[in-house]
């Protein structure tokens, strides 16, 4: 999303003066952050192919060396960590980073087997510290993922509360980017992971996770609370009738979650978040998640194939009518 609005015009619209002495250090910080971003773009390994390749290689190495967690993990951790600190070449750093990630995964898993609670608490401390000070993007992503999965495995017997809380935290992080924090990556991971985990559970037909999505009103309530956080962010700019419509939409979402599938509800909430934050990629992911959850929902119903066809046809007509309605509204703009 890029508009014709400049930053100066935007700040003027929001009554923020660039000549305010309080704003000056913040402006300098924003310029610095932008320069850092541009430096990152000069790195040939600052790329999706490189990221996927690195993660895949790190996971392969981790899986291969799982039988020797300390014998392989400690030397890799020390050597790669020390070498990464010294080296300046992008290619060598990329290489070392891959095996450093493998070593972190090996050691975390080994320690987690010995004491899950201590590892989770330590990860929480590291994650909080990494969110509050400027560390590498990769480090924040890795810490957030490790923290999420550690919490999930600790509370595996009762996963609803942690998954719901992660979703709420992620929603809040996306809708209210906090001052002096670098928490955008954890926010994405915390929003995505519960939905992806439920989807993976539905694909692999894991009974505990399928029941989370289909039979639990608690999961639906947690997803609906994401909608409530969105409402909190918007209610100042809404009129009374809009507030009622918004709340009615929230109740409809809750019913959708309770009676259809919590996954469908979660993906709809994710789409709304993406819409109100103008995030195109997030919108596409939300739509893809919605389609998957909808297909799994239809396949799980005890109905005939022709009735499934009628449901799909009705959905198609609904989308088409909605599209025609949008087209009718366009000339008035």
């Amino acid at each position, binding site marked *: 999303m890029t508009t014709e609005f400049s*930053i100066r015009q935007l700040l003027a619209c929001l009554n923020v003066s660039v000549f305010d002495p309080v704003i000056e250090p913040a402006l300098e910080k924003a310029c610095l952050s932008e320069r850092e971003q541009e430096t990152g773009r000069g790195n040939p390994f600052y790329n999706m192919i490189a990221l996927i390749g690195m993660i895949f290689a790190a996971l392969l190495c981790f899986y291969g060396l799982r039988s020797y967690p300390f014998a392989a993990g400690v030397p890799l951790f020390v050597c790669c960590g020390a070498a990464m600190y010294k080296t300046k070449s992008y290619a060598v750093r990329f290489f070392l980073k891959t095996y450093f990630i493998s070593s972190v995964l090996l050691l975390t898993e080994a320690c987690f087997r010995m004491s899950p609670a201590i590892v989770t608490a330590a990860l929480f401390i590291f994650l909080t510290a990494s969110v509050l000070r400027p560390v590498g993007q990769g480090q924040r992503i890795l810490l957030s993922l490790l923290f999420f999965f550690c919490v999930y495995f600790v509370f595996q017997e009762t996963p609803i509360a942690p998954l719901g809380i992660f979703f709420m935290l992620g929603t809040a992080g996306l809708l209210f980017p906090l001052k002096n924090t670098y928490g955008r990556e954890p926010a994405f991971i915390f929003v995505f992971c519960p939905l992806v985990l439920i989807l993976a559970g539905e694909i692999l037909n894991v009974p505990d996770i399928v029941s989370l999505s289909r039979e639990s009103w608690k999961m639906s309530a947690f997803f609906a609370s994401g909608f409530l956080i969105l409402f909190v962010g918007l209610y100042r700019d809404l009129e009374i009738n809009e507030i009622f419509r918004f709340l009615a939409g929230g109740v409809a979402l809750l019913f959708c979650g309770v009676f259809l599938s919590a996954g469908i509800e979660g993906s709809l909430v994710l789409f709304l978040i993406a819409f109100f934050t103008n995030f195109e990629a997030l919108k596409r992911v939300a739509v893809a998640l919605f389609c998957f959850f909808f297909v799994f929902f239809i396949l799980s119903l005890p109905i005939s194939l022709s009735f499934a066809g009628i449901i799909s046809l009705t959905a198609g007509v609904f989308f088409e009518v909605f599209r025609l309605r949008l087209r009718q509204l366009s000339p008035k703009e």
Partner: protein
Amino acid sequence: MIVPDKKTEAYLNKPVSLWELVCLCRSGILRPVDFLRAAALCRLNAEEKRKGKRLLFLLSCLSFLSAAFFFVVSEWSFFYTISGAVLLALLFVACSFFRRFAAADYAGAFLIGAMILLPDLIFGTNAILYEQLFLWFFLLVFWAVASQRSGVRLLPLIALNAAIIFYGIQFVLPSFQMDADTFCVLGALLNLLLLVAREATLGKTKIFDDSAFRFFPLLSVCLFLLTGTAVQTLSGGGISFLYCFIFTVSAGFYFVFKVFDWQACRLILVFCVLWITALLYRCVGMLSLSVEQSMALFLSTESLLIIAAVIGERSFSFRLEEK
């Protein structure tokens, strides 16, 4: 009053993007509660509506397609009657009339296949699948020649490869006329000939100028050779690795130094990683190690191979971008 310097001025005059909005909040210029308001200010209504319409169109198409799928599957017995065949023929005629639309052009190509394959399913004629696929290929050639779409023109090649594969599975391999390794090498050779013919006629005829006609035969060669290496890795014997090596070197040389094509180079790189993986698997299997040791050695070497490929690809790509 503080006057912003040149860098800050340049920053302030930049157009707003989502990333800038987040940065404004993170750096403390905007309050977090103002983020949604700022995003609303930056939203381009016309653009949002255009994207929304596109998204809804996609969703409605998917819904209609899935509805058609469910109805066809539920009424499958209808296609076991003469009325079903007549319906397909009528649909094909309709597609021929409206083939200026992409959907009709592709649907026509698939309806030819449906009309060839369905009689066997309906009447149990015991027709041989590879013969049906060869017939589909010949009829598709006539359909594709008149088409302006490279995707449709590529379909005969896909049908031909499918026919060759089933010819191998149903006839050549069960009758022991040749082993799987040799069959894969011959399949690769046929696609290689197609590729060479395409490269030789490049610019002389417009039909095969599309890059898909380079990419698909190249992909087919790689897949045939990889199948050969997989068969060889599982059953032993053969010299497919040597063919893979020769193909990698010659194709790499051609697409790097003669006719530069970065996508083809990437495909050859992926192919190279895959056949070396098969070779590695075989080599590790020859060593007398425990299961854990073999797994550790194989997977860590494989990760090294992948990282080396990624580093090579990114470094070369970056140099190209710089040039």
